[in-house]
């Protein structure tokens, strides 16, 4: 086996991370720059953060983005789960391949094309039906949901595929109708996939620019749109401040979620280890001190069972 040279691997790793994070670090540093010029350092200041708070246009746009992202995430999870479940569970029905391809298509179709086609559709509909009137939150929402459904469907599909059918069969065997099984057993078991699908949709919607550019109308500029239009007029340290805040929020969110998941995983592993450590004492000792002990622990039952066994 070839042993990797340690200095070499460390420096390659370092270069890689530098490539990934140097721009972000620079951005954070320059958000504290006093100068109005982004590239010239003239002293430490937090004035750009203060300026952010007074920037009504940015704050309105941020709220709008947040609203659309929330709406998109919920709608995409509802529709995507449905599609993913059907793809994973309904076996090989006719046109399955076509259906799969059509669900996955938005992942590979360039957003520009999606944007243009949706725009054409909405304009045509407005001319023929008088609805939707103009472009705004609603049209952006439709576009974002269309984009995100595919991601959710794929995440849910792979989770449902690896889910042991026995859980659902057991629930049905115990008297639950298929619809009830879906809501009481399947959904809780795939909850993690739903959460990741939700988060994925939320972030996709929050920072989508291309699709939004086609579908937004007057008075419905999302945060990415505003940022992009301002950057075109010249870089502004205020944007650096905004970006820094975003990075901070995202980092906190990711780290907290990771911590929580690792902690619960560790707790689960510990509990499982404990359960199996008990096994030898519970089962090996004949008919059985351990079981008698557990029955006595619960109070009455040991007497009851003994009576039951004799009669």
């Amino acid at each position: 086996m070839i042993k990797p040279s340690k200095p070499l691997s460390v420096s390659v790793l370092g270069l890689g991370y530098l490539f990934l994070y140097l721009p972000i670090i620079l951005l954070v540093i320059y958000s504290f720059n006093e100068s109005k010029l982004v590239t010239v350092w003239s002293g430490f200041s937090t004035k750009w953060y203060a300026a952010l708070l007074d920037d009504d246009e940015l704050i309105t746009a941020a709220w709008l983005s947040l609203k659309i992202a929330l709406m998109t995430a919920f709608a995409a999870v509802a529709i995507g789960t449905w599609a993913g479940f059907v793809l994973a569970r309904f076996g090989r029905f006719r046109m399955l391949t076509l259906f799969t391809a059509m669900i996955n298509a938005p992942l590979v179709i360039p957003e520009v094309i999606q944007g243009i086609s949706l725009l054409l559709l909405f304009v045509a509909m407005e001319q023929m039906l008088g609805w939707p009137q103009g472009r705004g939150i609603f049209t952006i929402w439709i576009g974002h949901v269309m984009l995100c459904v595919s991601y959710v469907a794929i995440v849910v599909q792979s989770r449902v595929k690896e889910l042991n059918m026995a859980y659902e069969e057991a629930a049905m065997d115990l008297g639950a109708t298929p619809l009830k099984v879906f809501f009481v057993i399947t959904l809780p078991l795939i909850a993690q996939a739903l959460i990741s699908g939700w988060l994925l949709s939320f972030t996709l919607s929050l920072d989508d620019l291309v699709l939004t550019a086609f579908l937004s109308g007057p008075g419905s500029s999302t945060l990415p749109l505003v940022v992009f239009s301002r950057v075109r007029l010249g870089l502004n340290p205020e944007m650096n401040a905004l970006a820094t805040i975003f990075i901070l929020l995202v980092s906190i969110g990711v780290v907290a979620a990771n911590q929580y998941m690792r902690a619960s995983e560790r707790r689960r592993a510990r509990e499982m280890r404990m359960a199996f450590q008990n096994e030898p004492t519970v089962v090996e000792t004949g008919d059985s001190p351990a079981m008698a002990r557990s029955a006595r622990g619960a109070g009455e039952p040991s007497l009851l069972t003994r009576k039951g066994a004799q009669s």
Partner: protein
Amino acid sequence: MNVQTLERNASAASRQQGKGFVEVIDVVKKFGDAVALNHVNLTIEKNELFALLGSSGCGKSTLLRILAGFETATEGKILIDGEDLARVPPYHRPVNMMFQSYALFPHMTVERNVAFGLRQEGVPRNEITERVNEALDLVQMRKFAQRKPHQLSGGQQQRVALARSLVKRPKLLLLDEPMSALDKKIRQQTQFELMNILGKVGVTCVMVTHDQEEAMTMADRLAVMSEGEVVQIGEPTAVYEFPNSRFSAEFIGSTNLFDGVVVEDEPDHVYIESASLPVRLYISHGITGPLGMDVSVSVRPERVVLSRAKPQQPYNWVQGVVKDVAYMGSYALYRVELGNGRMVTANVAGMVLSQGEAPSYGEEVFVSWNESSGVVLTK
């Protein structure tokens, strides 16, 4: 009172004992062109523990899934207590199943798992509590009622799964490979515990297993299945002592098979000539079939005697050389090579071994058995 109620129900049920509580009538199941079940007929009596035994792919699991309602039979009927189940969906069948993986709902406590079936039925809350406690007492798991499944050991999970499938008082309980997820060490004891509980409750049971020891230990009767067909049905001892085919003889336990031709067939005995033996095979019961018919004779290893001296009897012996000796504790497994290169397996009891009289590796020995040990197999 809890366990007694269960028992009272059980004894009430067993009073009206009749034949054919569960009837599988001419069931065929096809998956596309593949035939999983080929005209299967079974009659299972009330409160019987019936085992479907076979290697993987023999159709036993398919039959179990048809009984549960997860698959529909291509042809044929299933009756439980006189009711045709063809059009009854799994969630309305009086049938409950204990799954191979137990399938305990991981997001619910033990108590909620066991209560699940009753809640679907809309049983009043206080009755649910009572019946869940009763079921958990039965399997001695009440102490663990508030635990989640992953906090239980394999044996404990199995008992919870059993409680969950018994709590609805099903007419038929299905057990899918009940022991396969357990360590070999705890299997045997668990088998006896499971039998005790099932006996106490008094429920008709169909069990699927590929482990012939498990089927022999637990089942009242068993059906040996192969390639979608039932090969033999009977009590474990009957199937072991009197297999009706080469498949049964070889699948249940191990055996020595001698191919031969019937040369004399009387009501009370039969002589068979085999190329492997210098003398005839003699069996003390008659068979039905023409002279000259090709048959196999099955002789179980524990019926075979090894001796250094030539046996007195003029039949049922053959000479060979000891090739392998495997010491198994209570007995030793001998493999003796005959003149024509065939191997015969013999079990030698521990007592003979300890007296130092047993032949050792490489010795010339005579292999013999008495006239009631052979079983004639015609197919």
